[in-house]
């Protein structure tokens, strides 16, 4: 009897467990949601825009590639005015051995990041029309997704090819407008002109959709009509449609007056700056993007790398009255510090990131007028900015276009325009040794705040030629961002 009851127990247990086995293995993640829970209401769908944005800015690919903003740092590291140190980070971009090498992490990181944003926008745009909810909100969310996609295509157009004048019909990068699925094949590259056309078409579609959207003043990361107008101004300028660039440039800066001279010295770390049109704020708990300041910030002790030292020659472009001149300082070690970027809260390693501000819009307007033959209006726009910076107005000496391009370098140093300006204008990187008239290293007596005067051996550019030892020249392939090897290997259509 005992034995039988034992057997019975065994059978019952076995059967009982069998019954629940299918549910038993039905587990669900707690840190991710299925897509049908995202695209079920308009409010939930909005999280897809926030999330894509947060991915874009706050993802470390490595500590030297802290998200989208580091593209801008790469752009300046590959220009003329940053004399990068050998510290960790952008040193290989600076010497032009990184972005040319399609096996490097930075190369694949930027490509992946830009296209992941594009696909998330494509997915959003394909779903949003069928999501129940408020149509007004649907409209501007759509506008935001289109603008975000346009930003990726504009970035591709800016760094992966030279300008439209010389290379407009050169195949540059593929365009995707539908969301990817497991069967999606890689597409062939579109031309540079097609990339700009896509950018402009997205933005022109977005602008009316964003018209009624009034973003909260503290949320400058949200895309509104000013952001879309600013991107459109860039796209027209970069693609050579100068006449069309001025209107959106003016529209973009409407309501964002140029900052005062004190604000210029506050470290470029605060999204509440009146001139900032678009930016990403950071907090102690969300500060991946802020870690770009570890490279940009050369004066706050907490910054890890402080590698973005200025070229000593760069200082010579400024008049002493210019408010920007106050940011220069020579360190004991001989580095030319341009203290434009400083952590806002060093203890928490927090600083906000600027993406677009009025000064750039004035410069776009000026350049667009200059290039379309309206030197007078160009001068006005340029001088509006120069006046605000307490620099003497441009009075017609020298080429107005060259003056504007130099003013861009001066005003937008560290904000990511160096390389893209060189590429689109067919310009060249210029790096001269910092030597005295005898060809020797410059040793300069420098007064320090503690009252001492020290003879300092001032450090300039450490790389004065391309890796193949040839001098810097226009249209060098070393300037271009390369397409990663994984794309070439896995996309048979890429070069079709």
């Amino acid at each position, binding site marked *: 009897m005992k034995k039988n009851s034992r057997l019975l127990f065994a059978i019952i247990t076995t059967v009982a467990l069998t019954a629940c086995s299918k549910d038993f293995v039905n*587990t669900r993640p707690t840190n*991710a949601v299925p897509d049908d829970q995202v695209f079920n209401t308009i409010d939930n769908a909005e999280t897809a825009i926030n999330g894509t*944005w947060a991915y874009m800015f706050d993802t470390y690919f490595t500590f030297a590639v802290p998200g989208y903003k580091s593209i801008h740092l790469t752009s300046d590291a590959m220009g003329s005015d940053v004399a990068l140190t050998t510290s960790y980070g952008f040193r290989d971009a600076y010497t032009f051995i990184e972005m040319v090498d399609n096996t490097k992490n930075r190369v694949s990181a930027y490509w992946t990041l830009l296209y992941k944003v594009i*696909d998330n926008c494509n997915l959003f745009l394909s779903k949003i029309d069928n999501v129940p909810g408020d149509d007004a909100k649907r409209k501007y969310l759509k506008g935001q997704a289109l603008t975000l996609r346009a930003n990726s295509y504009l970035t591709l157009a800016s760094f992966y090819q030279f300008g439209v004048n010389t290379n407009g019909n050169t195949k540059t990068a593929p365009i995707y407008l539908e969301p990817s699925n497991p069967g999606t094949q890689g597409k062939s590259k579109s031309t540079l002109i097609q990339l700009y056309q896509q950018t402009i078409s997205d933005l022109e579609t977005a602008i009316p959709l964003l018209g009624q959207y009034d973003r909260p003043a503290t949320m400058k990361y949200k895309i509104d009509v000013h952001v879309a107008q600013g991107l459109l101004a860039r796209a027209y300028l970069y693609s050579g449609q100068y006449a069309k660039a001025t209107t959106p440039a003016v529209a973009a800066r409407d309501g964002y007056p140029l900052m005062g001279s004190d604000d210029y010295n506050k470290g470029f770390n605060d999204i509440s700056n009146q001139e900032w049109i678009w930016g990403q704020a950071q907090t102690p708990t969300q500060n991946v993007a802020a870690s770009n300041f570890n490279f940009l910030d050369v004066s706050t002790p907490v910054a890890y790398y402080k590698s973005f030292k200025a070229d000593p020659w760069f200082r010579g472009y400024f008049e002493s009255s210019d408010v920007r001149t106050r940011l220069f300082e020579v360190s004991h070690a001989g580095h030319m510090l341009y203290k434009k970027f400083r952590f806002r809260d060093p203890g*928490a390693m927090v600083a906000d990131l600027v993406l677009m501000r009025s000064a750039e819009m004035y410069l776009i307007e000026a350049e667009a007028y200059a290039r379309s033959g309206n030197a007078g209006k160009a001068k006005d726009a340029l001088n509006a900015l120069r006046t605000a910076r307490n620099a003497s107005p441009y009075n017609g000496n020298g080429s107005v276009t060259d003056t504007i391009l130099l003013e861009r370098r001066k005003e937008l140093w560290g904000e990511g325009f160096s390389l893209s300006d060189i590429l689109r204008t067919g310009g060249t990187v210029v790096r001269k040794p910092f030597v005295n008239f005898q060809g020797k290293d410059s040793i300069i007596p420098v007064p320090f705040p503690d009252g001492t005067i020290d003879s300092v051996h001032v450090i300039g550019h450490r790389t004065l030629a391309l890796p193949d030892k040839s001098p810097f020249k226009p249209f060098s392939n070393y300037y271009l961002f390369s397409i990663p090897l994984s794309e070439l290997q896995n996309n048979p259509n890429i070069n079709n």
Partner: protein
Amino acid sequence: MLQRLLIILLLLGPLAAYSQVRTVTGTIVSAKEKEPLPGATIVVKGSTKGTVSGPDGSFRLEVTDPAATTLVISYIGMVPQEVPVSTTPLRIELQASGKNLDEYVVIAYGTAKKSSYTGSVSQIKSDELVDRQVSSVSKALQGLAAGVQSASQSGQPGTDASIRIRGVGSINASADPLYVVDGVPYGGNLSAINPFDIESISVLKDAASSALYGSRGANGVIIITTKKGKVKGSRIDARVSQGFSKRAVKNYETVGTDDYFQMYWRAMFNTQLANNRDSLTAARNASAGLVDELGINPYGSKYPQPVGTDGKLVAGAVPLWNDDWDKAMQRTGHRTEANLSISGATDNTRYFISGGYLDDQGIYLGSGFKRYNVRSNIDIDARKWLKVGLNLSAAHSDQQAPPSEDSRSDNYINYGRLMGPMYPIYVRDPNTGAYKLDANGKRVFDYGDYRPDPANPRTNLVQTSGIDRHDTIRDDVSARVYAEATLWKGLKFKTSYSADYSNRQAHDYTNPTLGFDAEVGGTVSKGSFKYFSWTFNNILTYETTFNEKHHLNLLAGQEAYKSTYSFEVGNKSGFSVPGLDEPAGAALISNFDGYRDSYALTSYLGRAEYDYLGKYFFSASLRGDRSSRFAPGKNLGTFWSLGASWKATEEDFLKNSSWLNLLTLRASYGGQGNDNLGATRYYNYLPLFVVNSNLGQGGTYRNALYNPDLKWETNLNLNAGVDFSMFDNRFGGTVEFFIRKSKDLLFSRPKPPSIGYPTIDENIGALKNTGVELTLNAVPVRTKDFSWQVSLNMTHYKNKITELPQAEIISGTKKLMVGRSIYDFYIREWAGVDPKTGTALWHYTNKDGSISDTSNYSAATQYYSGSSLPDVYGGLTNTFNYKGFSLSFLIVYSLGGKVLDNDYTFLMGTGSAGGRAWSKEMLNAWTPSNRNTDVPQLTTVTNNFTANSTRFLYDASYARLKSVNLSYNLPKSLMEKAHLNNITVYVQGENLFTLYNHKGMDPEQTVGGTTYYRYPAVKSVSAGINLSF
């Protein structure tokens, strides 16, 4: 013991002659483990009369022949012993004769006799583990079992070695074996298991042995079985050992201050030349700028320009200090271990209770491991038909594990290694070199805010390693409870519930006043990571013999498994006041996160084993698993095996062979699975959005493409082997051949990143591992007092990709192609240094196929450059016994294969990282007078000279004296006076000697052949005593 026997012999010898029928009784035990030997034969010498010992090792034999004087006691795998016939109860201890060939081995859901088992199992016994100075049992497996590849990449106390059984059958899914403790998959930490508690470790390598573990068995199974009480009465064992440890192999050789200054001068000079200065200006600028660039003048203010324009130190300049930071970051580690166990049995209870303590201090400052263990294993015969048992163990460990597998600048291993020798550890007088002392007369640590970035300014880990914390505190509790009922003759039902709970608390703290995080006021991170897993299973077994010829053993059962992982972690910074190291003391929250995840399996399993006359053995097994890792409809997998063996020595024509003791041929085939894509990718069958947020607003985004068709990766294993033993079991071994094919690989298939996602998980591709394993055991010398045993194992295998979704896939330093191995390096090929210019060259292949050199790294061609897999690896154990002395040593070896040493590249920089230490090899850098060299010229400009290429690919062959043990058993006569069973004193050494090629790098690196700034292996010497009473 021997003396007692002799006395017995003297006393009883004469008496015996007068008896007609003498009854001899006694117990037969193994000499080493003191455990009863059931099935030993006791034969009257010169006759065929005899008996076999019972389950408790006891026997009773009636000797009718009055002339008989001697009994021969034998047991397979043991040295036969002759004892005089006596009527006093005997206790006979048999010595092992090398590796035991007819042992019982623990297998999936049971045990089997090794000599006839159809599957492939290697067993490691407790005596091979117990003396080892390791804190994780995984580190003791190396070299002891054929087919097992163990890499102890880290010498950090308390870390595990990574184990690979018969190669790697997966490209993206896990290659780790399944660990089973006391019959059930183990969810705790390996380092929580005290090696002292381990009875045996079985390594299951083929399908017949591991298919019963189904979806988790593809990478092989390691079964750890803990000790049980066996012998009636109680026995107490105590072990205490003390030891010391140091780095096993020397660090890379680096240059001193004098060489450093002259080399850095050269680097600056070359940079100036490259920037088109004339050589006089260049030399002047280099001499003038040198001290500024390096931030320090260790030659004193008397020599403001210590290196002249000729690039040489100026006359009279002598460095006032030349510090060795690497040495300063290290110390002699100290190790203490103590274990105590009480084990035994009563009529219906068997028990083993133990406690252990380990304090293993690391050789680097701020590292170490402490562990406290308790265990209680109890089996009770509750009724004649019912057995119940409970194994309960708990461990608490406290590991100090500073960053050591990371490229971050506070990596404790790199910190000292990479610091230039001209930077003083303590503040010095810049003119005299005298130490600056504080008010208490103590030296003051130098935080070097003058040091350039590569030399970590404002830090001094030599001091802060004693203040900061990098602690991992683990608590592990494991329970195994079972009840086994005999329902009918041979029909048993066993139900068991097992649970493993493991909590890991990570506590990292950097202080607010000194070093790396002083600027942010210190940081603290505290996290709690909890793992709980349970297994409930119900197994019916039936064993019967019919017609005295057919033996049948059946097993059927059902099992459910669930594991839940949950964590929360928070980070804060900005301590209000110094001296606090918990989050409560810090002001600013910088991170808080946590989530929970579960993994569940339900399974059915069955096995049938049949043998005919103990000659022909057949086995078959089947298991069905339903897993939570795949979509409904795809989540049911079936795994199976078939095996057969033929014990040829049971055949009449071999049975009476005078020299051959055992010959078994066996083969098996079957399929196991692998569902382990890694903890972060459980749900790739669902269209998921990752949840994040932006500035307090909720966010989601798509980070990966999903694949609803994902299913198991399947391994198909073929195993064929021969076991043999001959010459009184003095020579024997096993030869096995295996083909391990894996298909439907859980593969991260590359996609063009422009579609948004660089990979998608699919079941594609196939791999094949083919190999041979050889194990040989011999007893070359065996006399009364002296014996010498040798055991050798070697494994050779090849890994081959047999199917890929596309022609080639480059991943990191490897390229996958059909016909190649997943371990084939695919990197640029170093072509040396251009004698004309001193720049580095690499090869590239022109369109016409010819090969040229290029100085443009990114234009160089990548080539297949050899494999990280060794040609052959294994271990060699020698044991010598002389009277009470025993000397044994284990040599492990790995021959062939390559390693890409990225650690070394840091020391081989060309000068762009001023302040970082330089390897001595850099002294040979190119100069116009030293043109034929393999080291490019020095320069302060960053370049690709140290980028991945064959320049840093080295031969990974090595042989290492893994362990040496010299022990002495005190004589019995002394023991008895002290009421002790046994006293052994011993001296033990680990990693004492290493033969290897590439100096500076510890040769034990990952199976994949890459380095990652890891804590190097340590060598240790310790002495201990074992008491048994």
